[in-house]
C-alpha cells in the first residue's frame, strides 16, 4: 500500500520537477555562454502565464487539434509514472515495462505530429514530417538499448533492471551498459529536440522540428505541450540516471533512504542537465539530412551493446 502511494507521489514529484529541469538546462547554458540567463524557475512562470491566456485556434483546425494537447500530456505523464524515480520495486511495474514507456512516448509524438498537420500550414507539416522521420529512425536504437539492458537484467521491467544492477555493481561498468548508455543518450537528444538534432531555442529557423509543429498552439494548449516536453526530457534523464547508475534509488522505504533517493535524483538530474548544456554550447546544429547519420551511429552503438552483453553473459 505504501509503495502504491509512493508510486503516485513520485509521479506528482516528476510533474512538479519537470519545468525546473528545463529551466536548469537553460540557465546552465546561459552561464556557459557568458550570459546571465533567466533563473531556473522561469519555466514555472511561463506555464502560469500561458494557462492564464486565451487560446487562438486556426479556423482550419478540427477537434483533433484541440484534443491533441491532452493526449500528449497524459501519455507523457503516464510514461513518467512508470519511471523508477525514488524507489523500487513499485506496484506500477505491473502496469507497464520499458517497452510500454517507449510506446506511450510514441503515442504523444504521433498526436503532436497529427496536430501539426491539422491547421494546414506549411510550417506544421514540415515539423510533423521531420519529427516522424526522426522518431522512426530513433526507434530501433531504443529497442536495441532495451534489449541490451533486458539481457543483463533478465527482464524488461524497470524495477527489476534497477534492482539487478544494484545487486551487481560491476554490471554498471560493463561495456554493454556503457554502450547502451551512449546510444540512449544520443536518442534522448533526438527525441527531446535538443542540439544537435533540433534547436529548442528558436522559432524561426528552417531547420526547426518540434517548434514548427507546435507553432499554431497558444494559451493553455501550449502550456500543456510545453509541460509535456519538459516531462519527456525528465523521463529520459531519469532513465539514463536510474537505469544505468541506480545507486541512491531506495529499496527499503524509510525516511532516510527516501531522502537519499531524492538527493541523488536531484544530483543526477543536475549532472545530466550540465552535460546537455555543455553539449548545446559546444556543438552546432546538424543539417537535417545529417541527422540520420547520427542516429545510425547510435544504432550501431546499441548493436554493439547487445553483442557485448551477449558475449559477457
Amino acid at each position, binding site marked *: 500500500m505504501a509503495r502504491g502511494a509512493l508510486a503516485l507521489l513520485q509521479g506528482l514529484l516528476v510533474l512538479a520537477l519537470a519545468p525546473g529541469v528545463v529551466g536548469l538546462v537553460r540557465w546552465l547554458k546561459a552561464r556557459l555562454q557568458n550570459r546571465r540567463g533567466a533563473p531556473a524557475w522561469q519555466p514555472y512562470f511561463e506555464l502560469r502565464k500561458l*494557462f*492564464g491566456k*486565451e*487560446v*487562438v*485556434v*486556426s*479556423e*482550419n483546425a*478540427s477537434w*483533433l487539434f484541440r484534443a491533441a494537447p*491532452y*493526449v500528449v500530456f497524459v501519455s507523457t*505523464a503516464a510514461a513518467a509514472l512508470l519511471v523508477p524515480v525514488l524507489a523500487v520495486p513499485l506496484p506500477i511495474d*505491473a*502496469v*507497464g*515495462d520499458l*517497452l*510500454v514507456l517507449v*510506446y506511450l512516448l*510514441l*503515442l504523444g509524438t*504521433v498526436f503532436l*505530429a*497529427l496536430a501539426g*498537420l491539422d*491547421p*494546414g*500550414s*506549411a510550417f506544421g*507539416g*514540415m515539423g*510533423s*514530417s521531420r519529427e516522424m*522521420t526522426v*522518431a*522512426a*529512425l*530513433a*526507434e*530501433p536504437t*531504443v*529497442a*536495441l538499448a532495451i*534489449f541490451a539492458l*533486458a*539481457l543483463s537484467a*533478465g527482464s*524488461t521491467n524497470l524495477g*527489476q533492471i534497477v534492482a539487478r544492477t544494484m545487486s551487481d555493481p560491476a554490471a554498471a561498468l560493463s561495456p554493454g551498459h556503457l554502450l547502451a548508455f551512449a546510444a540512449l543518450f544520443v536518442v534522448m537528444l533526438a527525441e527531446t529536440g535538443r542540439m544537435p538534432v533540433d534547436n529548442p531555442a528558436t522559432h524561426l529557423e528552417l531547420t526547426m522540428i518540434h517548434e514548427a509543429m507546435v507553432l499554431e498552439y497558444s494559451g*493553455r494548449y501550449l502550456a*500543456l505541450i510545453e509541460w509535456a516536453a519538459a516531462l519527456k526530457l525528465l523521463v529520459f534523464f531519469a532513465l539514463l540516471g536510474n537505469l544505468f547508475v541506480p545507486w541512491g534509488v531506495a529499496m527499503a522505504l524509510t525516511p532516510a533512504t527516501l531522502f537519499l533517493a531524492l538527493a541523488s535524483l536531484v544530483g543526477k538530474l543536475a549532472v545530466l542537465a550540465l552535460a546537455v548544456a555543455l553539449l548545446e554550447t559546444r556543438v552546432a546544429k546538424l543539417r*537535417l*539530412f545529417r541527422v*540520420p547519420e547520427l542516429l545510425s551511429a547510435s*544504432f550501431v552503438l546499441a*548493436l554493439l551493446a547487445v*553483442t557485448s552483453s*551477449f558475449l559477457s553473459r
Partner: protein
Amino acid sequence: MTLDTPLAACLAMLAAYLAGAAGAVILPGSRAGRVAAAAGAIAGATAGVVLAAGVLATGHAFALHVPALLSLGGGLALRLDGLGAFFLALVGVGAAPAALFGVGYTAAYAGRYSLRWLGAMLNVFLLTMSLVTLADNVLTFVLLWEAMSLASYFLVMTEHEQPDTVAAGAWYLAMTHVGLALILVAFVLLMPPGAGSAFADLRARALALSPAIRNVVFVLAVVGFGSKAGLVPLHVWLPRAHPAAPSHVSALMSGVMVKLGVYGVLRFALDLLGVGPAWWGALLIGLGAASALVGILYALMEDDLKRLLAYSTVENVGLITIGVGAGLLFASLREETSAALALAAALYHALNHTVFKSLLFLGAGSVVHATGRRDMNRLGGLIRRLPWTAACFLVGSLAIAGLPPLNGFVSEWLLFQSLLPAIGSPAPLVAPVMTLAVGALALTAGLAAAGFVKAFGITFLAVPRSPEAEHAHEAPATMRAAMTFLAVGCGVLGLAALTVLPRLAALLAGYAGLAAAPPALTLGPSLALPDGFGSMSPPLLGLGLAVGAAGVWLAVRLGAARGLRVGATWGCGRIGQTPRMEYTSTSYAEPLRRVFAEVYRPTEDLTIDVHPESRYFVQSIAYRSEIVPWFERYLYGPLVARVTGWAARTRALQSGSVHAYLGYLVIALLALLAISLAWND
C-alpha cells in the same frame, strides 16, 4: 441421427453462404440483391464463428467426411481442429463487417457493374475461405484453395474496364498459380505412394521421410503459401490487386485472405511436417523481417491511399511471419514455453491485423465513396466532412501503428517479448537472428507510425486540395456501422488481452514442438510472462490514460483561462493561405525518401521553363518523380521479359494446321507411354 451443434453450425454456414449467393443472383432489383448477398454473408460468418468457438471452447475437433463427393481423391474431408478454428473465426470476424459495408458501398455500382455477379462471388469467396480452414485431405484442400483464388480474382476484376485492374488481375492470377503449383508439389512429396491422401496419412508419412525431402517440402510450402500471404519477394501482386478490388473486397483480401497463407505455413510446419531443424524458423524470421521492412518502406512512399494500405499488409504479414519463425525456432530447440508464446503472439497479431486492416480499407472505401479519389495529394480536410469515417480511421491508424492501449500495441509488445528472452538460449544461431529481428521490428514500428500519421493526417486533416474533397459527404449508415464495429474491436482486443492470450496459447497446445499444456502465464490485473520477463496491463493502462485525460481536462477547465478565439492560420505575414501551401503526401514522405534513397533509387525529372528574355523569370516548373520498386526493376522486369520472349517463340508451333496439332498429340502420347513404361521397369 441427432444433429449435434457443430454439424448444425457447419451446415448453417454452408447454407447461408449459398443462399446469399443465390439471393444475389435471383432477387430482382439492385437493393434486394445487395441486401441478400450481405445477409447471407453475415449469417454464414456468424455460423462460422459459432462453429469455431465451439471447437475452441471444448477442444474437440469437428469432423465431417462425405466419401460420395470427390470420390477419386478420398472424398470430401472436413475437420476443424484448434488451429483451423482460429482461422475460421478470423474469417468470420473479417467477413461480417465487410459484407455489411458492401450494402452501402456497392449501391453506386448499380448499372455500371453486375451486382449479381459481385454478390454471388463475394459469398463464394467467403465460403471457400471458410472451408479451406476445414479441409482435411489433399484434394479437398487444393480444390478449395483454387476456388478461393479464382473467386477473389473475379472480385478483383469487378472494375474491369480500367487498364490498371486488368494488369493487377493478370499479376494476381500468375502469382497465385505459381504458388498453387508449388503447394501441389509439396503435397505430392508428402503423399504416401498408393495410400490415402488424408492429412492423417501425410502426418504419418512425414515422420518417415528423409530430412532432405522434408526440407524441400517445407521450402515449397513457405514459397507457395508465401505467394498468397504476400511475403517478399512474392508480394508484387498484392499492392496491385488488393487496391484494384472494390474496397470491401480489398478489406477481405488484405484482412483475411493473406492470413490463410500464414495458415498454410502453420499447417505444414506445425502439423503435417512435425518439428524441423532450427533454420526453418530462422528462414521465416529473415523473410518476415524483409517483408516488414520492404512493406513499410514502400507504403511510406505511396500517394494512393489503398496502395499504402496494401503495402502495409505486406509489412504486417512480415511481423506475423517473424512471430511464426521465432515459434518454429524455439520449437526446434525444445524451448516449449517460448515457442508457444511466440506463436500466440503471431496469431494475436494476425487477428488484430484482420480487425484494423479491414477497418482501414473500409475507411479508405468510404473516402473513395465520398470523393471518387484515392490519391492523397488530392484529398485533405475530410475530418469535417466525414467525421465518423475520420474517427474510425484514426482508431485504425493508431492501432496499426502499435500505440497503447489498442490491440496492435498488445500484439507488438508480445512479439517483442517473445524475441527478447531468446537471448538466454544457448544455441549459437539464436542470438544474432533475434537481435536483427528486434532491430527490424523496431524500425518497422517507427516507420509504421510515420506512415500512418501520413495516411490519416494527409487524407483527413487540413484543408481540401480538390473540389471532390471539398464536396465530400459522409458514408451511409451500413458503412458507418461496419466501421464502428471494427473500431470497437480494436479497443476490445487491446483491453481484453488478458482473456484472449491464454486462449490462443491453449489452442496451440499439443501441436508439434509445443507442450501438451499451455505455458503458465501469470494473470492478475496484468499479464506477466513466464520467468518474470516482462509484465504489462492493457486494462490498467487504458484506465489510467482515460482517468488521466479526464482529470487533466477537468483541471485545465477549472484552473486555466477559458477564452478561445478562432483566427487564420499563421503564415509568416503572408496573406491568403491556400491549400496549395499544405504539406502533401509526397512532401510528407520526402525526408524519409532521402534517408532511404539507396533503397528507393527514385528517378526525378525537373523541367524549368524560363522566359525567353531573362532566365530570372520562371514561367513554369514541372517536377515528376517515380519510384520503381527494386524487385520489379531487377527481378520481375527481366523475368517477365524472358517469359514473354519464350511465349513468342512457341508461336512457331502454332501453325493453324489441324494435321500438325494431331501430330503433336501423337508425339505427346507416345512420349507419355514411353515414360510410364520406363517408370514401371
